[in-house]
């Protein structure tokens, strides 16, 4: 038997075993197996948390979103077809559950801003907006001004540097639509950043 054939067979066996294991794992998730949920969390929480933070812009709201994603996972997994990785699927679950958390975080941010603008509080000096942290905060504020679809497209494509194909799969929209959303999001963000006086 040729070596290449052997390699192909080994590869095929490996892929099949992986699929069987994944199928078993998905079945356990569907049954609401706590151990399976814990495994999924341990394997993917970092990616989901990072996305949630970037999208929501607030640690507490992001933690709430992460919590929600993994709690609804046993029910949501029923729609998992296996055509994308579980991590991608988890991100799409997060996108579907983000609306409420994004709004709540934006409201809290707005309230904090107003509080900071009150007399006696420090004002945001454009001269100070040079550090990385400040720059990130400004961008989060600007993101609040975007519609959720555009916000999701920007975070996934630009911040997380995912391909438009992958983003299209996550948000369940055509690639062209994702690119259009990204274009409008960037256009709006540029003008908002200028208005903020960031240099």
């Amino acid at each position, binding site marked *: 038997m040729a070596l290449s054939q052997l390699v192909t067979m080994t590869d095929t066996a490996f892929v099949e075993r992986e699929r069987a294991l994944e199928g078993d794992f998905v079945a356990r998730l569907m049954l*609401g197996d*706590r151990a399976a949920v814990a495994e999924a969390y341990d394997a993917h929480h*970092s990616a989901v948390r990072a996305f949630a933070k970037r999208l929501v812009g607030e640690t507490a709201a992001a933690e709430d979103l992460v919590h929600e994603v993994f709690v609804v996972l046993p029910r949501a997994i029923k729609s998992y077809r296996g055509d994308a990785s579980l991590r991608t699927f988890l991100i799409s679950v997060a996108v579907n559950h983000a609306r409420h958390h994004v709004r709540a975080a934006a409201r809290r941010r707005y309230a904090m801003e107003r509080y900071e603008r009150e007399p006696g509080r420090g004002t945001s000096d454009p001269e100070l907006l040079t550090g990385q942290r400040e720059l990130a905060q400004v961008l989060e504020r600007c993101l609040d001004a975007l519609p959720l679809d555009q916000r999701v497209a920007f975070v996934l494509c630009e911040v997380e540097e995912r391909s438009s194909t992958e983003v299209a799969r996550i948000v369940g929209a055509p690639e062209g639509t994702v690119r259009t959303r990204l274009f409008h999001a960037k256009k709006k963000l540029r003008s908002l*950043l200028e208005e903020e006086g960031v240099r």
Partner: protein
Amino acid sequence: MTDDLLARATRALREETRGDDTGARFTRSRIMASVHEDRVKRRTRWAFLIPVAATFVAASAFGAASGTAHRAFEVVVRALGIHASTPPAPRTSAPRPVSASAVAPAARSPSPSVVDTAAPVVNEAPAPPPPPLAEPAPPAPLAAVAPAAPKTQPATSSGHEPAPVASAPDPTFELYKAAHQAHFVDRDWARALGGWDAYLKAAPRGALAPEARYNRALCLLRLHRNDEARVALRPFADGHYGTYRREEAQKLIEALPAGIDGP
């Protein structure tokens, strides 16, 4: 310039939110607790629903088997006063004609039949002259109606016209309609007798066979063929059709020896 600014801001956001897993352990505990709670809730729901569903199914089966459900249905229907619009299902107490042979004890004359309608046969029979048979038959109601509604109803003397129920075309229905026309509209007893015989030949176990047999017996009475009429009425009097037309048949048979002479 602005592009550069946006790129810088994007990079800043990416860096700021990378690898920040503080709170990860706490969130994990929350998730595990929530998943457990969900599972317990689901189990509790099933533990409650399954016995309820099983009880309902068992009770329904018992009710259907024992007839309790039907009686309860009738009570409800009566209480709501909607008998007219929703005729209850045929009772199990009214046996259907057992078989063609059982129904027609005598070879020559099967048995009576039909919906002689509201005509209280009881009143007519005893009277010597058969004409008193108040042929009640409202001819119209059958128009364009199939001879469904097997009427296993009790032998109340009020006999209704066979319930006109729209259904798929029945080839024997035309025969029934023709006999009905001859009997109740034209009052041509000989033709009606032939008509009932034709119907019974075509559908000895048809939905309207009992009614056809009873009407046939009435025709025999009209035609002074008393012996045959007696034979035709006997299954009804003996309760082969439950209580359907039993009293009337018994009274007619009792009256026969006295002689039913003229039409």
